[in-house]
């Protein structure tokens, strides 16, 4: 129904325990309806991502795979953005396996302490792959 009316009637403002009841129900029913508990749904998402990543580079941070309800139908809606294609880049085995090397384009976040050159690591890291 029209969001305008909903707002005019003050029904969108969460209040009391009923909004909590509604939220919890919506969560529980998503899984009831497809008979898939949350951990398994998570495992399925990871597997889907793994398959897709075999063929194209996925921008992990922006991936959004979620179960949605349309009336009484459940659907899996996936938004899986690819990474921008870079010049002369050939994915290599070791890179896919994700062995981080010094100057690799995906350094582990923990030992990232090179002062002064924060930010645009893109062009640099790509260059010294070869």
């Amino acid at each position: 129904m029209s969001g305008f009316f909903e707002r005019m009637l003050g029904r969108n403002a969460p209040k009391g325990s009923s909004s909590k009841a509604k939220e919890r129900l919506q969560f529980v029913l998503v899984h009831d309806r497809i008979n898939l508990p949350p951990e398994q749904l998570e495992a399925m998402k990871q597997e889907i991502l793994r398959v897709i990543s075999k063929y194209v580079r996925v921008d992990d941070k922006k991936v959004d795979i979620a179960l949605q309800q349309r009336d009484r139908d459940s659907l899996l809606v996936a938004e899986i953005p690819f990474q921008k294609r870079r010049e002369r880049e050939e994915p290599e085995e070791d890179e896919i396996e994700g062995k981080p090397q010094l100057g690799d384009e995906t350094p582990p976040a923990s030992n990232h302490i090179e002062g002064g050159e924060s930010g645009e690591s893109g062009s640099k890291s790509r260059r010294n792959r070869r």
Partner: protein
Amino acid sequence: MGAKVVTITSGKGGVGKTTTTANLGVALARMGNKVVVIDADIGLRNLDVVMGLENRIVYDLVDVVEGRCKLRQAMIKHKQFPELYLIPAAQTRDKSAVSPADMIQLTDHLRPEFDFILIDSPAGIERGFRNAVAPADEVLIVTNPEVSAVRDADRIIGLLEAENKGPGQLILNRVKSDMVRKGEMLSADDVTDILAIRLIGIVPEDESVIPASNSGTPVTLNEHSRAGQAFRDIARRLMGENIPVVPVDEPNGFLRRIVKLFVSGNDG
């Protein structure tokens, strides 16, 4: 042609199926329909006492199915409405005494002579539920505005859809408008948002329901009862009348009614 078979079910127990069946039966009969109500809750017979017919029972549903009596002999005529009949459940047997095919056969015998056949389903999703739903042309799912009752209603709706009986229509029973207003109880809009099925009625929590079942005179015979009014409205909707479902007591009741008219006018 013939009767429309309407099954009243819920998933969760104690949400008001029997109360609803008795009241719709009486309300429909009072408006001139020929009605049979069938208690399919075998082993937990209840519809007879809620309707005040318990001391007239000789034969029951299982007697009919097992051929110990004629169908007519198990049909108890209501005191006040001569065109309202009850077929009681057996009290000493269990649900396996009846099969879905038996229920279809039974209702097929009744269809030509009646306008409505109402079936009071037991709680749960087992044999008794399947018996009650098998002959249904229409299914009413009763629920309360509580997490567990709504969850069970969703499960039932899923089962109905899987058997091509769905999705059914929803009756939201025992709504306390003051709690809804304070945001401490799910509203009718919340519940229909979640379940995504059509709402055929909202029945308020009403203190006159229990005295009514104490005396075996369904509350819809009480002109002053709000629950009684709600059941009469549902009966009218079953007869095909177009009465909008509006929670009169919710916040901005008046404004909302206008909005509802406006909105339903667009998608009608």
